[in-house]
């Protein structure tokens, strides 16, 4: 596991210049925008999850995944490493994003509490990690290119759902209000259910990935 993590880290490091440009771009956009404090939040976190997926392409290059499987690393460990690398990289980028967003907020609106950024930032982290973990089994099954297309597709569907929900919500105020009431009354329970569901989906993604990898032939 450690060896595979080092390999992916070295791959990331070798693309350092490219990522430095991306961070710079995020800073420029945030500086230019009056209210885009959370831009780095989703931009950098999304890119980190995308880089995790691109490590599959590096591995696949010339059938390299098959070679990796001849090293002392079994198929389950390979999947485990990708999930862990995804968490570390996306989580790390998210922390950097949080810091950047907080600094920008404090500079632009000194009176505002930077902790107010936590809910949206947590939301970005949860969504991008979920998308990443859902894309991993697709990549293992269909290959890096199709898998990444799948990720973009999922983001599209997710965005579409959000738009539909927000529009429908306007025409069904009563239902939304009653849902808000229920959530407000049972906040702890709602959060617990959401977290449990979230973790269950991630675990399912992991298990499916392991099963695909164990059946895969090189």
């Amino acid at each position, binding site marked *: 596991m*450690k*060896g*595979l993590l*080092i*390999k992916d880290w*070295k*791959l990331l490091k*070798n*693309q350092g210049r490219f990522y430095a440009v991306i961070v710079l771009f995020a800073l420029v956009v945030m500086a230019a925008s009056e209210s885009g404090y959370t831009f780095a939040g989703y931009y950098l976190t999304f890119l980190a999850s995308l880089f995790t997926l691109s490590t599959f392409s*590096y*591995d696949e*290059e*010339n*059938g*390299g995944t*098959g*070679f990796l*499987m*001849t*090293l*002392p*690393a*079994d198929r389950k*460990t390979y999947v485990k490493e990708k999930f862990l690398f995804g968490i570390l990289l996306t989580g790390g980028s998210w922390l950097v994003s949080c810091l950047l967003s907080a600094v920008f907020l404090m500079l632009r609106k000194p009176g505002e509490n930077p902790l107010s950024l936590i809910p949206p930032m947590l939301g970005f982290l949860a969504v991008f990690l979920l998308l990443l973990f859902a894309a991993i089994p697709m990549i293992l099954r269909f290959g890096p290119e199709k898998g990444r297309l799948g990720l973009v597709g999922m983001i599209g569907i997710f965005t579409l759902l959000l738009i539909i929900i927000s529009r429908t919500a306007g025409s069904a105020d009563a239902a939304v209000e009653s849902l808000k009431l229920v959530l407000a009354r049972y906040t702890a329970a709602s959060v617990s259910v959401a977290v449990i569901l979230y973790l269950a989906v991630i675990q399912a993604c992991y298990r499916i990935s392991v099963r695909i990898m164990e059946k895969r*032939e*090189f």
Partner: protein
Amino acid sequence: MLVRLHEAEKHYDSFCLQCSLEVREGYVTGLIGPNGAGKSTAFKLILGLVCPEAGEVSVLGKTARSLTSDDKEAVGAVLPGSGFSGYLSIRDILPVLKSMYRDFQEEDFIKRCGQFGLPLDKKIKEFSTGMKAKLKVLTAVTHKAKLLVLDEPTAGLDVIARDQILDLLREYMMPGDRSVLISSHISGDLEGLCDDFYLIDSGKILLHEETDVLLESYGVLKMTEEQYQALDKEWILKVKREPYGYSALTGQRQYYMENYPEITMEKGSMDDVITMMVQGGQG
């Protein structure tokens, strides 16, 4: 027995491998055969990269697919055209190998990289074919593996690079308890290295022989039509029609040399054996 394939079968759309072979401790075993014969499929079965549909594949006494990470430390592998990502350098893969193999000999690895002219900081994708091949073999041999499984490790190399790799493998075998399974298109490589070899074609093993026996006892008879008709064919393995008459492969060269001194006899080589066994008909 370090490797054992017993009636192992693997089917693809238009190809079927049905093969039995063994690699003994202290032996360098060659797997030879034309392109598409099934060599790489056999290697993949041994390395657990594909699953057999029938038969048995065992490595180091365990089913190939059930080898643990600890078991795999005792195996070094070279696969044609595949290895670490080209976006990494040798310096990048050093800590990877160090953390994967408890017996990784870092100093030796770096020293040999220098000897082989492999730069530590250059990206692997910028390496020449020969440099990539050397790196793959070096990676396989520098962690005290008990078994090497090398599929075409010398493919596309010039004579000097090939000799360097073959010397490295000879050195690897020095302790005496190690084994190598190797395939190559260049039979000369295998003649000078292998203790025994398997000839494979169309997914089937056609011949298993000790290399010394092949070089000492095998021969190719070159004869006219009349000489062929009068020939005792008991020890003839394969026959091929030629413009001058017939050529025939035998595993009893001495017998024919003594009894048919008028027939031209050529000493057997791996190339002759491959050509005759694959292209020749029954004697």
